[in-house]
């Protein structure tokens, strides 16, 4: 998957004079190859989530190109639903379908997007739930699960279609600290199995262990990219250095 010179600004069409324009994504390019695990981090409000949503075409970029394989998704007339079916997306606030059990949450797209017959969809949904270790929640509704369980169901929902890439938007930051561990463990398992992932996250130990590349994102731009070892030892930009210092201090204090 590749992003080429992507731009996205909010508040452009507003007619109000005092409307703020927020340039969430300014000329961002990024390439992810099969099997890559990349991690985007940076201050909140810097546009990371918007960039991730642009990649999945859940937000349509103002300018620039998004490629999935050799298909350009930003060309007019592309079947975006088909493209999105090949991309898994995990939301910060989970967004499970609230009226459906965990199993049906995972099943829904298998039935109606992949058009699998009922029994096969059920089998695959159960397998996906088993993979993230929430089989015991299969018949629970989202509100009856803990945040960590719900987020793992969210991951199962994204996984079940065997997507080419999984985009995860701060999958642990809306969870209680004691619940982030189970979600991170799930992501480590996925990494071991060779999944292609782009993760927005500030889980630094996880980043150090599994990320092939870390991307420091600030004010709508990629400031610095490099291997985790570089970021943890000597980032080359001041801003990245300051941010890493702060985040590592916070983590060690905990």
């Amino acid at each position: 998957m590749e992003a080429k010179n992507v731009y996205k600004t909010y508040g452009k069409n507003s007619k109000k004079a005092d409307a703020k324009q927020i340039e969430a994504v300014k000329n961002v390019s990024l390439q992810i190859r099969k099997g890559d695990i990349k991690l985007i981090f940076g201050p909140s409000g810097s546009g990371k989530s918007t960039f991730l949503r642009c990649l999945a075409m859940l937000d349509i970029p103002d300018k620039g190109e998004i490629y999935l394989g050799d298909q350009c998704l930003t060309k007019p007339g592309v079947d975006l639903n088909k493209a999105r079916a090949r991309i898994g997306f995990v939301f910060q606030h989970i967004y499970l379908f609230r009226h459906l059990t965990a199993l049906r949450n995972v099943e829904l797209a298998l039935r109606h997007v992949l058009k699998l017959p009922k029994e096969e969809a059920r089998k695959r949904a159960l397998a996906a739930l088993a993979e993230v270790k929430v089989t015991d929640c299969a018949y629970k509704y989202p509100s009856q699960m803990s945040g960590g369980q719900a987020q793992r169901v969210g991951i199962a929902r994204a996984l079940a279609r065997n997507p080419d890439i999984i985009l995860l938007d701060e999958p642990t930051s809306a969870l209680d600290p004691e619940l982030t561990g189970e979600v991170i463990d799930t992501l480590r398992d996925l990494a071991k199995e060779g999944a292609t992932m782009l993760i927005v996250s500030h889980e630094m130990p996880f980043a150090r262990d599994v990320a092939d590349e870390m991307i420091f994102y600030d004010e709508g731009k990629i400031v610095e990219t490099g291997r985790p070892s570089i970021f943890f030892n000597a980032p080359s930009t001041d801003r990245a250095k300051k941010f890493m210092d702060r985040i590592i201090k916070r983590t060690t204090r905990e």
Partner: protein
Amino acid sequence: MFDWLVDPKYYTWILQGLGLTVEITLFGVFLGLAIGTLLAIGDIYGGKLGRGAITVYVEFFRGSPLFVQLFLAVYTVPAILNVQIDHYLLAFLVFGLNSAAYQKGYMKGAMQTILDDQMMAGLSTGMSTAQTLRYVILPQAYRIVIPAWTNEFCSLTKSTATVAFVGLFDLVSAGMSIRMWTYKILPVWLVIGAIYLIWITGFSKLMDIIYDKKKIPGVELPMQ
């Protein structure tokens, strides 16, 4: 005071009138829900033109007296088009279209409380907007809208009395006829009123039960 009630002639009238009242009400609220849903979707996704047309529709049906709408539909429109259309059918349609104008608002409100996040979640799995509406948004919106829909049912039931003015025989028409034959005023209207009360209360209770049964576990619904 109520001895006329046992007269077969009178209670047949009442049953006949009640039959029409129930039919029109049920037809009206269900047709209203179907059209109201389409209008709500049109209002959200229809662009400027669609929204404009829907606003005109809604303001016409909400802003003019039901009696006038009924009169236009039953007498004026067929006369202009020079066709004969069954009065019952036309009255049924007017109630459906009128109710849709109100129910559009309820449905749109219900959909908007869940639309942003649930639509994005649906699209992220590869479903189309239409599929997400069908499998994710509407099933939740219909649950949310039940209390408002029940109110609409109560109000519509009583509005159906206007059909008496275009010559259809509903519960109020039955009351007027019996009053003329028996010269009893208060007892007749007490009985007619009690029948409305029982029908509306019974149906509302039924909807309350359905609402509780269909409630999404743990989700506190707004608009109760």
